[in-house]
């Protein structure tokens, strides 16, 4: 069977169960696809092709012995901030260029146990700080729909690798939109789960109260299949929630009859591209035809979320990144005997511009004299944003909006202007502030570039969000359209 890389995760998993092809054949097909398109897309930082073939043979043995899981033998990409034992984990930074973890992140362990096959580590903005994949210390990633454009970020490698058929799924992370925004810009499905649903152990931290790991896939169902494997309590992460986890994918029906969906006017205001707005409005009509009831709602504090985020996330990052001192691991400046000089040079050389910028902002917001006006104020506004969502979810089951204010922008267009780059996350940040699950689902094209529909629900409503996404996906044919590359 040729071109196995074109299969969805579900189709591939079923094919492996039925013995239509082997995990080795599937892996070889994706590796051939990588040879064809990766030179143009550049979605990986590290490729682990040889190990992948070894793992594929092992997966075939497991399938033969009848111990298959839904992910056994399925090729994937892991964002390069997930610690992988014996495989370099750079976080997109020169600071960690030589870093080789000695343990696996819990999600990596879960995926390995399930028999998924890693083809390598995905490109990303440095320390996940960016919305275009351009702050990667190594190289940009290019959007498979238009190679002159960015894939979004920070999980740009993840979204581009799935969109170009190099892997059947990818794992990303989302602090202010880093799964959903690239998913929207690359025309794939991206889920940021409820804060605490997926263990963050072994995820290199950016802003710990906001970071969450999640899957990027071609279809909604595929996405639920991956979340089923990586969700769950982990004693190694004190914020991981201890609740009974049941298979989400097994219960999905795509039935949304009677579901109340809120449409917040604040998500359709100034700065949102008209073409994007129109497609999302069409999608809302489609959901209505599927039986949902559409309700207009208001989230007036939305306009404060961006400023709130750009105080809180940099504050947390300035603390988290203090650990990179050039002593225990990471880039080290050896040209002096002075301890402080060595540290300042190690950090000055190891960190890129955006990381320095955010550490400076965070330190400013936390410093005495400014703490109350910025950090404490932002934390209070965060409370209001969260309360406002709680109130809206008394009236509706989920919220529908665009994911990104624009389609993919050109490489180089925004990198010189941090404020315009920050605006890319204006519609995704509120869900992180409130710890809510949010998903982006492809909903059409403006000028041949993909647009994403965002579905946000109350905490732990992933199953409901997937059902809404599935209802939409079934009634359109976006999922069958492959990227132009």
């Amino acid at each position: 069977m040729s071109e196995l890389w074109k299969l969805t995760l579900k189709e591939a998993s079923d094919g492996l169960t039925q013995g239509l092809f082997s995990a080795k054949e599937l892996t070889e097909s994706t590796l051939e696809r990588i040879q064809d398109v990766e030179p143009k897309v550049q979605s990986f930082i590290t490729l682990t092709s040889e190990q992948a073939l070894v793992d594929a043979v092992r997966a075939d043995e497991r399938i033969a012995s009848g111990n298959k899981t839904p992910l056994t033998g399925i090729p994937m990409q892991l964002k390069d901030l997930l610690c992988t034992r014996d495989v370099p984990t750079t976080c997109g930074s020169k600071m960690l260029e030589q870093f080789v973890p000695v343990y696996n992140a819990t999600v990596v362990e879960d995926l390995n146990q399930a028999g998924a096959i890693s083809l390598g580590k995905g490109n990303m903005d440095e320390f996940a700080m960016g919305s275009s994949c351009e702050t990667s210390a190594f190289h940009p990633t290019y959007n498979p729909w238009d190679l002159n454009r960015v894939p979004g970020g920070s999980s740009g490698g993840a979204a581009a690798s799935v969109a170009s058929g190099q892997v059947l799924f990818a794992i990303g992370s989302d602090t202010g939109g880093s799964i959903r925004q690239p998913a929207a810009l690359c025309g794939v499905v991206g889920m940021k789960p409820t804060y605490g649903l997926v263990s963050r152990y072994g995820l290199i931290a950016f802003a710990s109260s906001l970071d969450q790991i999640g899957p990027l896939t071609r279809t909604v169902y595929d996405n639920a299949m991956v979340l089923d494997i990586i969700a769950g309590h982990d004693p190694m992460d004190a914020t991981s929630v201890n609740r009974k986890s049941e298979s989400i994918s097994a219960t999905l029906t795509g039935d949304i009859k009677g579901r109340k969906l809120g449409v917040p006017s604040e998500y359709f205001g100034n700065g949102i591209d008209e073409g994007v707005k129109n497609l999302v409005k069409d999608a809302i009509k489609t959901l209505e035809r599927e039986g949902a009831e559409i309700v207009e709602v208001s989230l007036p504090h939305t306009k404060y979320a961006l400023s709130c985020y750009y105080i809180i996330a940099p504050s947390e990052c300035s603390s988290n990144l203090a650990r990179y001192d050039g002593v225990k691991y990471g880039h080290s400046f050896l040209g002096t005997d002075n301890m402080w000089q060595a540290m300042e040079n190690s950090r000055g050389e190891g960190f890129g511009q955006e990381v320095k910028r955010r550490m400076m902002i965070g330190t400013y917001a936390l410093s005495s004299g400014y703490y109350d006006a910025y950090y404490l104020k932002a934390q209070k506004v965060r409370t209001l944003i969260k309360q406002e969502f709680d109130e809206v979810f008394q009236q509706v089951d989920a919220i529908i909006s665009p994911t990104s204010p624009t389609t993919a922008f050109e490489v180089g267009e925004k990198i010189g202007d941090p404020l315009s780059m920050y605006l890319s996350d204006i519609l995704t940040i509120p869900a992180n502030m409130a710890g809510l699950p949010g998903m982006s689902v492809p909903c059409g094209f403006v000028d041949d570039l993909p647009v994403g529909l965002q579905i946000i629900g109350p905490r732990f409503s992933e199953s409901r969000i997937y059902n809404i996404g599935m209802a939409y996906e079934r009634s359109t044919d976006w999922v069958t359209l492959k990227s132009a590359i």
Partner: protein
Amino acid sequence: MEIDKQQIEHLASLIRVQLSDDEITSLGEELNGIVNEFNILQEVNTEDVEPTGHIADLQTVLRSDEAQKSIDVEDVLSNAPQTSNEFIRVKRVIE
């Protein structure tokens, strides 16, 4: 309020990052632009609003005080820039 060059240098010393003159200039301009945007938050009435540091219903996690196997010394040292026997070598701390 304007963040001046002296403040940028002070912030850089707090985060222990060596900045070039060009970086000091560009970061100064950028930070002023960004911090200026934050002033929008002053519009919001937050009287009697509790700050949110964390969204999860955090509870203190306890486990029994039993020794567990940790990462091997050899593994810990494998990423250290400079080692000496089974230690990480550091610069002189006390002059």
